[in-house]
């Protein structure tokens, strides 16, 4: 279910040349902000949780998920070079699983590692805040990658749709309508973080069992459906 050649090509597509700049810019900014806050403010557990929750988990992880998830397959479908890959004797689900593995790895490296570093800078892992948000970022990376990889196979406007979900649904509707929060990867990841962190610093609206079930369900279903979608892929011409 894992093809090293496909993986190598996907890594190169994701990290080649200028594309990696966006991926490096975001974590760098997070660490700069964390250092600035620490210098301004000193150690404060609540501020650390706010920065990690408000900036790292709410903005950075979904954005990197969108870039890595859709970037793993979207451009290839977009410019039609996916046919050369599909013409090889490699199973379609294998292609999806390989690309998903790569996307998850990239998202984890570029979101969880800087989250942990920023957490250490902010309060030296006081009350397990850094570890809690790192775990949340790791968990969210898996679900986001699977979701956005599926989007990449379904629509040519995957990046836009992914951003609408990440920014409008999770950030805007999530803060206005309580019900929308139940259907949000961010909240599921937060409920995992809630278990790890000290009391009262991380709050989620979803219970842990529900969150874990939804996370696993969404990941598996999205991966399966993306495989199905790739089996019956029709290449659209340029509009």
């Amino acid at each position, binding site marked *: 279910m894992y093809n090293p050649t496909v993986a190598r090509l996907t890594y190169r597509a994701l990290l080649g040349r*200028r*594309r990696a700049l*966006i991926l490096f810019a975001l974590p760098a*900014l997070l660490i700069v902000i964390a250092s600035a806050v620490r210098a301004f403010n000193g150690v404060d557990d609540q501020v650390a949780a706010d920065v990690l929750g408000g900036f790292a988990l709410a903005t950075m992880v979904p954005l990197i998920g969108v870039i890595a998830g859709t970037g793993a397959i*979207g451009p290839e479908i977009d*410019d039609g070079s996916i046919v050369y890959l599909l013409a090889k004797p490699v199973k379609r689900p294998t292609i999806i699983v390989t690309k998903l593995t790569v996307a998850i790895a990239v998202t984890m490296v570029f979101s969880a590692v800087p989250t942990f570093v920023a957490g250490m800078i902010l309060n030296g892992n006081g009350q397990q805040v850094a570890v809690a948000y790192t775990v949340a970022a790791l968990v969210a990376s898996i679900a986001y990658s699977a979701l956005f990889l599926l989007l990449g196979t379904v629509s040519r406007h995957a990046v836009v749709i992914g951003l609408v979900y990440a920014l409008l649904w999770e950030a805007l509707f999530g803060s206005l309508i309580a019900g929308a929060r139940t259907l949000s990867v961010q909240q599921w990841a937060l409920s995992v973080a809630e278990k790890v962190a000290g009391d009262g610093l991380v709050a989620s609206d979803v219970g842990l069992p529900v969150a874990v079930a939804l996370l696993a369900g969404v990941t598996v279903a999205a991966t399966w459906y993306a495989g199905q979608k790739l089996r019956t892929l029709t290449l659209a011409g340029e509009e």
Partner: protein
Amino acid sequence: MSIETTRTETTQIHNIGYRNYDGPRLGRAYARRSLFSQSLRGAYGLGRSAKSKVLPMILFAVMCVPAAIIVAVAVATKMKDLPLDYTRYAIFTQALIGLYLAAQAPQSVSRDLRFKTVPLYFSRPIERVDYVLAKFGAMAGALFILTASPLVILYIGSLLAKMDFADQSKGFGQGLVSVALLSLLFGGIGLVMAALTPRRGFGVAAVIATLVISYGAVTTLQGIAYGTDNIDAIKWMGLFSPITLIDGVQTAFLGATSSFPAGAGPSAGLGALYLLVVLALILGSYAVLMRRYRKVGL
């Protein structure tokens, strides 16, 4: 003429009837105008497939609907003043403006790069400056239509509700100036990010990342500064993201109330710096685009 004709006849094997074009040549200005109007129409999907009309039209509708609702409520309850300032509208709907820009700026420039049509443009009588100006103008124009239309709805509604004419006109004018600045600023930033990559998807991500990340970082820092009573620091931080720049300029010069924490917008002195940064960014993005297209395509 007759000499030339006889000469070509002796050198031709077949005369298959090709004729030279001797009608009027419409020239550089016409080509520039065409490129501008095509790009502007393309930003709303006009003249393109039905599928590419969906997203810009939905975003345009979503921009206008809240304005219509506000007007309806204001008229129905006979308010003396609109519940929302003209200048605040774009700040509230910034996510939509950002999405529109992210979707349309790469549409405008990335595909020209990817399908190598840019050399074809430059084989016409237009120059680099015409191409950049036409694309920049079209993007800013499309954003202006998007951001000014709801203001027009608000203005017409306020006049229908017989609110104070002078007061409303002044607010409307200030709002228009503010969204014009916003359109130029956002259009420039969007095109620069989009022109970096021939891949549309990466262009979309780059544009939205620039807008959202800078805004997210600034508001997070402002929130922390507010929480730790560093009110003075708040207004300096606004210099680092496009939408807070516009917010600062209109707070200082266009009579808007700031949406910074504690309403701690810049005063006129610092506001001049805000305006300077905005103008520098607009001119800077024009310069970057000119540089980008110095050597392109082939």
